[in-house]
């Protein structure tokens, strides 16, 4: 019967097509589900997002920890001198810019061409949420927001991302690490009276004369580790880096200087300007490790979970004893997916 044969042939064709579709498209492609993001928005996203773009460095660095192979790009070029510390999945990713801070801004058309199925944006203090939503609505990609204001938020963010990517176990381990680190550091430093807290000056820029307020998100780790950031004020801009005079630093008597510029250590030790600054007199200027990502800031990230322990140990070795090397190895394994050697460790701490 011709009609049956036709039907049979059609069925065969359908099966073939379905098989083809299964072979080429990712599993569960097209399937979606509704979630509530960290901004409290209900939004429909792919059930298993495969091509993900993190729209700002703190987000992308977080995704780097939990789902590196899903990233379609990064925001800023990776530092060339630390290639060995990066996951191999990320080394060759294209640089796509970001929608936050200074530097390369993303190009929406370029993002569209990369065909992301999910954009994850930063619910930052200085980000206009509506604007971010509107811009990605133009290229018809769902956006979810991560809240990363404080180190505690990072623990929640990992737990949330674990659900997004179906990697709850790994994500919960990370979240637990952050919560545990925070709890231990807080416990060790909670009872230090304000007057006895270590006075810390946070030196940025090559001349060491830019800094950030103690209430700025840029310097949160100093606060958590029980240090007293001598520059007491409210943050006024996203970028921060406020100018300060040497005289004011002399007056504020810091016992320790954390610097983000290695060149500054030599400058401060060699200059008459700085010689009466207490920390310089005592030779206590410490360079912040930054490989492959900065331990404290720029970008702010979960690296702070290690950073606060290192700082607490640096500030109060008796109250917070720490095997920095062992802790660093453990942290890099868990979050960055690399096993570092002793040589790597000394390079990082150099």
């Amino acid at each position, binding site marked *: 019967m011709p009609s049956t044969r036709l039907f049979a042939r059609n069925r065969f064709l359908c099966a073939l097509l379905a098989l083809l579709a299964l072979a080429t498209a990712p599993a569960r492609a097209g399937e979606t589900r509704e979630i509530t993001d960290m901004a409290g928005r209900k939004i429909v996203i792919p059930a298993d997002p495969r091509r993900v773009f993190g729209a700002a460095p703190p987000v992308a660095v977080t995704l780097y920890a939990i789902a590196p192979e899903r990233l379609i790009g990064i925001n800023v070029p990776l530092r060339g001198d630390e290639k060995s510390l990066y996951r191999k999945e990320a080394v060759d990713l294209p640089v796509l810019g970001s929608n936050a801070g200074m530097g390369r801004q993303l190009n929406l058309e370029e993002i569209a061409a990369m065909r992301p199925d999910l954009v994850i944006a930063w619910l930052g203090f200085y980000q206009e949420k509506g604007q971010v939503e509107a811009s990605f609505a133009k290229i018809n990609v769902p956006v979810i927001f991560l809240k990363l204001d404080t180190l505690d938020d990072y623990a929640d963010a990992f737990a949330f991302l674990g659900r997004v990517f179906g990697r709850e176990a790994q994500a919960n381990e990370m979240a637990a690490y952050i919560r545990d680190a925070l709890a231990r550091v807080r416990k060790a430093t909670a009872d230090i009276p304000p007057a006895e807290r270590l006075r810390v000056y946070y030196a940025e820029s090559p*001349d060491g004369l830019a800094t950030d307020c103690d209430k700025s998100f840029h310097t949160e780790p100093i606060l958590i580790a029980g240090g007293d950031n001598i520059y007491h004020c409210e943050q006024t801009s996203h970028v921060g880096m406020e100018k300060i005079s040497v005289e004011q630093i002399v007056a504020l008597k810091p016992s320790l200087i954390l610097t983000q510029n290695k060149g500054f250590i030599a400058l401060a030790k060699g200059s008459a300007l700085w010689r009466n600054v207490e920390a310089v007199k005592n030779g206590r200027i410490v360079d912040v490790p930054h490989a492959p990502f900065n331990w404290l800031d720029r970008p702010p990230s979960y690296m702070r979970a290690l950073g606060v322990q290192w700082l607490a140990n640096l500030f109060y070795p008796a109250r917070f004893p720490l095997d920095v090397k062992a802790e660093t190895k453990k942290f890099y394994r868990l979050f960055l997916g690399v096993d570092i050697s002793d040589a790597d460790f000394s390079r990082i701490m150099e």
Partner: protein
Amino acid sequence: MRLALLPFLLLAVVLVALSVGRYPLAPSDILGFLGACLGLVDLPPERFDLLRNLIVEIRLPRVLAAGLIGASLSASGASFQAVFRNPLVSPGILGVLGGAGFGAALGILYSGDFLTIQISAFAMGLVAVGVGVLIANLFGAASMVTLVLGGMISGALFASALSLVKYAADPYDQLPAIVYWMMGSLGAVDLKQLKGAAPAILIGVGALTLAGRALDALSMGDDEARSLGVPVQATRYGVIATATLVSSLSVSLAGMIGWVGLVVPHVARLAIGPTNSKLLPASALLGASFLIAADSVARNITRAEIPIGVVTELLGIPVFVLVLGRARRAWA
């Protein structure tokens, strides 16, 4: 106002600037320190050392740097205005600022060492002016118009090169450092650097002052200057080279400080007239006083330092508007 009063104004500003700062010192501390220096008063050695550090090592270099930079920007601005016969010209006319900005950014990108940044800014400032003059000569004989065009092109060229450097810079630390350098800062200048730059700046400003009468003739027009016996090309290029050297030295010391080189010569001209042999020293003295005062505002008015470039703009623009109102008739 007479020229002879300006040194006293400068002295007064210097004394006030040395007495104020974010570190709380009472006038009695200052007097005590002066007394101790002269051997009249006994201070505990620790206190004396702190005062010496604050007044001599921290405030003095900054005040001296502000003075030197204000003087050099103003004197070179006045010289450029005479050479180009245009009261709206500022020391940046030939692209020196664009070049220095690019040089500084390059220094931040590749070294981050403060001294390297300064040297790189100075060198690229000179290179930019050289490129501008070269472009001017491409058009044929270098005239006023081709020089200005060459400077504009060179300045734009280096500004876009700066944008490229910014694009390549690490947005976490290098980029903000470049942006902050662009706004100018006097906070990191110390006596060592001043010893290097000060003689060149002082000699340069002195040489410009000596060229004052030739500049008067030159500001009448090339042919008239020639008919008055002035070697026009030698004077023009000598003055341009000196003013460029002096202004790029100051840019390399403290970054971009706008408006001083444009506004101060106008104020000085209103006060003592356009004769360059008086105008140039007056501009230098007034510029020094102005920048020291502006810097004192920058480092004292709020807890965070206001970038000096922002202060000179905020103070300079209203002054310029006032001056324009009074000088307008002369250009009609």
